[in-house]
């Protein structure tokens, strides 16, 4: 295993490029045919896909139910602002807490399962929250979604930032939160804890023989991953000023997984790249055809057949040979 920390410039180059692109996004996105909300969407869904990949790519556990925690974060934030306090910051905090607590409670029920069974149980559990959001319509708005609320201006001590009317300001708020969440994940992956997760991915039995409490590690990794997904969910509802049960539906979980796979599960930035490709493609397809669902489905099939390692995985392979 190569050393993780390296001051070598060539190794830091990808990080520099990513951050530079993200920081300057509002400047160039319009010139390549996009718009700032699209950039924010890539950022937020990319964060969700990276969080999923913490579990999928680095712990080797296949979760197909992350939409549940994404949606809980989204509803948590939206309902806080709608019913409790009109505060963006509080909405983010409560949304994240709701998703994290739900994941922590469900965790012990599923950490003993592996592989396809883990996937199946996580998908099934995700549906509970979908039905709650769907049925509890006098509070959640049911199928029509939670409306009549908007994100609020940020009241920092030194200045007031109007993130509601300036989509650029909201983008930078999302970027700050993205940076914190991604930083935490990167730091964790370099810590002994993160190395242990990778050891579990590589050979669970050996890890167990070494005395590592595997189930507990998977539980912690699951909770961290779901917590960050719920951060992304909270941001997503703030971005749209709206949330509906589809954010909780199992097809949303599938979208996260395909983003991670498409970009490259074995690379840290892969899921972000996957999210960018997926979001832009979906945006384009739904504007040109009513049958975009077929094309998205076809896209899934093609990715599995021809790009199972993802874009970054392929590039890395090409460079290696």
């Amino acid at each position: 295993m190569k050393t993780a920390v390296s001051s070598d410039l060539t190794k830091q180059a990808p990080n520099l490029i990513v951050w530079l692109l993200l920081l300057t996004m509002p400047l160039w996105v319009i010139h390549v045919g996009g718009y700032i909300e699209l950039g924010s969407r890539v950022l937020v869904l990319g964060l969700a896909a990276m969080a999923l990949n913490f579990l999928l790519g680095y712990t080797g556990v296949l979760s197909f139910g992350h939409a549940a925690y994404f949606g809980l974060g989204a509803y948590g934030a939206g309902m806080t602002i709608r019913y409790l306090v009109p505060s963006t910051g509080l909405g983010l905090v409560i949304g994240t807490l709701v998703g994290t607590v739900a994941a922590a409670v469900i965790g012990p029920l599923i950490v003993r399962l592996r592989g396809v069974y883990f996937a199946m149980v996580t998908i099934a559990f995700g549906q509970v929250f979908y039905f709650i959001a769907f049925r509890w319509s006098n509070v959640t708005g049911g199928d029509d979604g939670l409306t009549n609320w908007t994100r609020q201006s940020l009241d920092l001590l030194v200045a007031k930032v109007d993130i509601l009317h300036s989509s650029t300001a909201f983008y930078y708020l999302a970027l700050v939160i993205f940076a914190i969440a991604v930083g935490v994940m990167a730091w964790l992956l370099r810590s002994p804890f993160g190395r242990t997760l990778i050891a579990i991915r590589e050979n669970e039995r050996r890890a167990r023989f070494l005395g590592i409490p595997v189930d507990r590690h998977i539980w912690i990794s699951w909770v961290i991953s779901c917590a960050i997904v719920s951060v992304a969910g909270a941001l997503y509802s703030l971005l749209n000023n709206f949330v509906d049960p589809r954010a909780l539906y199992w097809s949303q979980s599938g979208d996260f997984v395909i983003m991670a796979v498409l970009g490259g599960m074995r690379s840290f930035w892969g899921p972000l790249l996957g999210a960018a490709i997926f979001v832009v493609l979906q945006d384009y397809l739904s504007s040109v055809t009513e049958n975009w669902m077929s094309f998205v489905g076809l896209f899934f099939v093609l990715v599995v057949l021809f790009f199972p390692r993802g874009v970054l995985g392929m590039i890395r392979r090409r460079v290696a040979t």
Partner: protein
Amino acid sequence: MTQLILFNVFNGLIVGAFYALMALGLSLILNLSGVINFAHGGFLAIGGFVAYALIPYVGFWGALLVAPFITAVLGLVVERLLIRRLYGRDPLYSLLLTFGLAFMIEDGTRFIWGAQSLPYQVPGWLLSPLSSSYFFLTGYRLFMVAIVAIAVIGLFLILGYTRLGVRIRAGTLDLETVSVLGVNVRLLRSLNFGLGVYLAGLAGVLAVGQLGLQPTIGSSLIMPSFVAIIVGGLGSLPGTLLGGLLIGVASGVTAVLFPSATEAVMYVMMAAVLLVRPRGLLGEEGRL
């Protein structure tokens, strides 16, 4: 009140029978090949739509016989062209592929037959109630239960007493040894997949008479089938059957007592089972 409860228990039993039929097919494929066939609901919908298209030509009974076979043949083609390439790889890939297929099938059926519910003709004499005090006991409902029962018994007979069935069961336990003993494992997996899809197609033909025929019928039935497998026990077909019937009846009863929790109750059951007995009610030890 007793009549209402009886009515809903019976209703739940019918829905549970669909869940079970579909879950049995899923379970067969999962146990032998380690593939979660997300497109299973799609195949169910195809079964229903093919039957709808065939009824004008071959009648209700003809469609009941032919449509599941056509669905199974389609399943075999899909297995041959796509899913076969993914055996032995990380289960993630077959999951994603069938997930995409499910999207394509749902959208494709919507493209061909439209999004609204289609009228589905069931012979009139099957629809009349058998008894006036138990108005819900129509012939069609009993008929559905009977067909499901026949299909399930047939499946267990095939698995128990035919060469194919014995090989499937052996392959579930140890595919490598079965292969070493000279069995064509590729063919075995194909036939097993076809058998599973046949059950989905049959469930589709029956379900549309009860639940209506629309493109989303598959995606609405696939989740309960997962729950049925988990509750019943991973790796156990009798468990899957039991699980399907249990969650069907549970949501039927809940529909009377606490209507807004009709869908949620099966997930609560799943949580309870996982808490007390992680391998499921009839699951074998060590097959987690």
